[in-house]
């Protein structure tokens, strides 16, 4: 107890120096924690976006991820409805899975033949009601909400396209896309005009009546190769141009109802899905559910070579981004830890020099060398703990303030401004780890000066001027 009292009073004795060290520690701690809060926001925002659009897990043909975009029909899941039933009937999985829904991904060419433009796109067929539920997933209570999925309740031939697709296909005006400049119309060509709807030429596709209905509004045609290589075309009515988060995706993304996509890719043949998306209530269940699904697949999927991939495997960019932020965090921690080490060490070295005679006195009175060392280490620890705790509190308060301000920022490669949220309190492990870590660094920083003080010769210390 006397050691504690002495340590506190000695720190207060040179209050200006102690305060400077305390502030350095507090700023260092809060800097680390604010960055970690920002980093956590990036991670959780990305994770939320990926889980909303692709689920936590996907059951796919083992080669679809690497080769499927070129020929989805070769890597589809046959009898996917039977597989869904088997999973939904599993007592354990039933409690952990929020949404289990098939999806069909394919490569296609989207064209606006009236405008004479087309582009390659990635088409995705979805069960709109399921997908709508997936978009409302928000495990981390982030302030970003996706609007209701426009295909839910829409016509069977409805589609949503990325705003980039809308721009290239010159549908901005029809779809009321903001910030999309209208091109000056070219003078009319003397060449014979193309039919306004190439779908009319397709053997498969909409009926003439449906085609008539689609002549108004934003209508596009999707061209894809069917199983066996023959081309197929469907006409879809674009009901919405929607930002897809990432610019690259926004330029190529087309979503349509699953039956429509299956009709385009499989025609009258057996409809398949390229993946079953599995969304869980809690991300922490991913490994457990994945293991159970893997155990279930051989019996439920027959001889099909299916695998279960989690959202990290499906989105390498996510892993790379998180890895990059973790590296930056580590670098900042080491940098600030080094600053703390030298600051506290310098403070304690000065204290030892100033109090050399005192050290000699208390040693003469009977305090052991270890006691002297303990005294100075305790001062370093007190500085470290108080500074780090104050820094943590400051970071939590500042983060709460920033979160209240409703600031936004534009992430690199993103099409939308996102809320600037500092999730400091969402990462209690980092808060505790950083506080404890910097406190320990401060304590260790005091160790060497304390050892020097403990090893002072009593006579020399008493003679010190």
């Amino acid at each position, binding site marked *: 107890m006397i050691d504690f009292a002495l340590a506190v009073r*000695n720190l207060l*004795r040179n209050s200006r120096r102690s305060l400077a060290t305390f502030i350095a520690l507090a700023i260092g701690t809060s800097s680390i924690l604010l960055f970690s809060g920002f980093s956590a926001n990036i991670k959780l925002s990305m994770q939320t976006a990926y889980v909303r659009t692709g689920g936590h897990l996907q059951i796919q043909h083992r080669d679809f991820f690497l080769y499927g975009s070129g020929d989805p029909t070769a890597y589809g899941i046959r009898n996917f409805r039977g597989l869904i039933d088997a999973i939904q009937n599993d007592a354990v999985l039933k409690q952990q899975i929020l949404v289990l829904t098939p999806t069909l991904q394919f490569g296609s060419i989207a064209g606006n033949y009236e405008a004479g433009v087309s582009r390659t796109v990635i088409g995705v067929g979805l069960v709109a009601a399921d997908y709508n539920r997936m978009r409302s997933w928000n495990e981390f209570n982030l302030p970003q909400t996706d609007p209701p999925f426009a295909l839910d309740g829409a016509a069977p031939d409805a589609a949503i396209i990325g705003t980039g697709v809308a721009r290239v296909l010159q549908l901005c005006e029809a779809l009321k896309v903001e910030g999309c400049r209208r091109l000056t119309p070219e003078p009319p060509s003397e060449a014979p005009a193309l039919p306004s709807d190439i779908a009319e030429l397709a053997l498969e596709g909409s009926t003439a009546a449906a085609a008539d209905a689609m002549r108004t509004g934003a209508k596009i045609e999707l061209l894809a190769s069917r199983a066996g290589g023959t081309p197929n075309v469907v006409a879809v009515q674009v009901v919405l141009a929607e930002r897809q988060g990432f610019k690259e995706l926004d330029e190529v993304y087309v979503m349509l109802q699953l039956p429509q996509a299956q009709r385009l890719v499989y025609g009258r043949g057996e409809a398949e899905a390229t993946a079953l998306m599995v969304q869980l209530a809690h991300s922490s269940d991913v490994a457990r559910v994945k293991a159970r699904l893997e155990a279930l697949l051989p019996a439920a999927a027959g001889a099909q070579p299916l695998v279960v991939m989690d959202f990290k495997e499906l989105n390498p960019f996510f892993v790379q981004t998180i890895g990059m932020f973790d590296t930056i965090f580590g670098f900042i921690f080491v940098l600030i830890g080094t600053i703390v080490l030298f600051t506290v060490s310098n403070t304690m070295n000065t204290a030892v020099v100033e109090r050399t005679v005192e050290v000699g006195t208390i040693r*003469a009175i*009977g305090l052991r060398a270890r006691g002297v060392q303990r005294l100075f280490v305790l001062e370093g620890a007190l500085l470290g703990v108080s500074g780090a705790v104050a820094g943590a509190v400051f970071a939590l308060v500042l983060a709460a303030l920033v979160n209240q301000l409703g600031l936004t920022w534009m992430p690199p490669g993103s099409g939308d401004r996102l809320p600037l949220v500092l999730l400091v309190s969402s990462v209690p492990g980092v808060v505790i780890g950083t506080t404890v870590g910097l406190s320990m660094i401060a304590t260790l920083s005091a160790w060497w000066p304390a050892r020097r003080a403990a090893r002072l010769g009593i006579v020399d210390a008493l003679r010190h001027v």
Partner: protein
Amino acid sequence: MNSVDEPEKRFRATPLEGSSASHDAQPVAEVSGVEKSYRMDAVEVPVLKQINLLVRPGHFTVLLGPSGSGKTTLLNLIGCIDRPDKGEVTVAGCAVNDLSDDELSDFRAKHIGFIFQNFNLLPVLSAYENIEYPLLLAGVPAKVRGERVPKLLEAVGLADLAKNRPGQLSGGQRQRVAIARALARRPRLVIADEPTANLDSQTGSAILSLMRHMQQRYQISFLFSSHDRSVIRAADDTIYLKDGVIQSIKRRQVSLAEPTRSLQRDQSEAA
């Protein structure tokens, strides 16, 4: 050769007046053939040469000599805060040469009190806490501390200034606190290195009287250094040191009966 061999032998052979127990006759400190030198740059400077000395228990002993005579070095050796290059030092019946650093710390805490020329109080502690500090180091129970410290403050006339920190005390008051601190653990020996050097003559004289009074009251051996010959009249024993050699030792025959009774009275009060 030490010029004081003969007087020291006489002292050892003659039982002290007023002390019946053999323990009382045992010197509180004994220095035999001690040599000590310091290295200054590349030069070895001898400070003490073949010192032989006995410090009588319950006596007020002054170590006299000019600056650089080796007084402080000899006090440091007897106070167990330094080790001799050669020879043996025995304090309170214990050969301290062989003790480890931790053992020496414990030994000092138990047997030796220090009074410094510059008072050396801990500036962040109050007068009360400064006196209490050695007791805390020794793990003395709070009840005992609570009884002993106020008595010591009373004894040195600072009962009203218990809460004052050293910065709020005069030089004389600080030295009184230092005296009380040195006596707190009831040591066998109190070492005082020029305790009056930083005080004016009047205050110095008062401090000297206080030390003498406390020495008699608690029957604790005091060994202090001074370069002021006027302190001789206050001392029981006077050791004169010059150029690292003891030039003379004068011992006064004193009765220890009265201080012993005082100590017994204090102990019964503490109980």
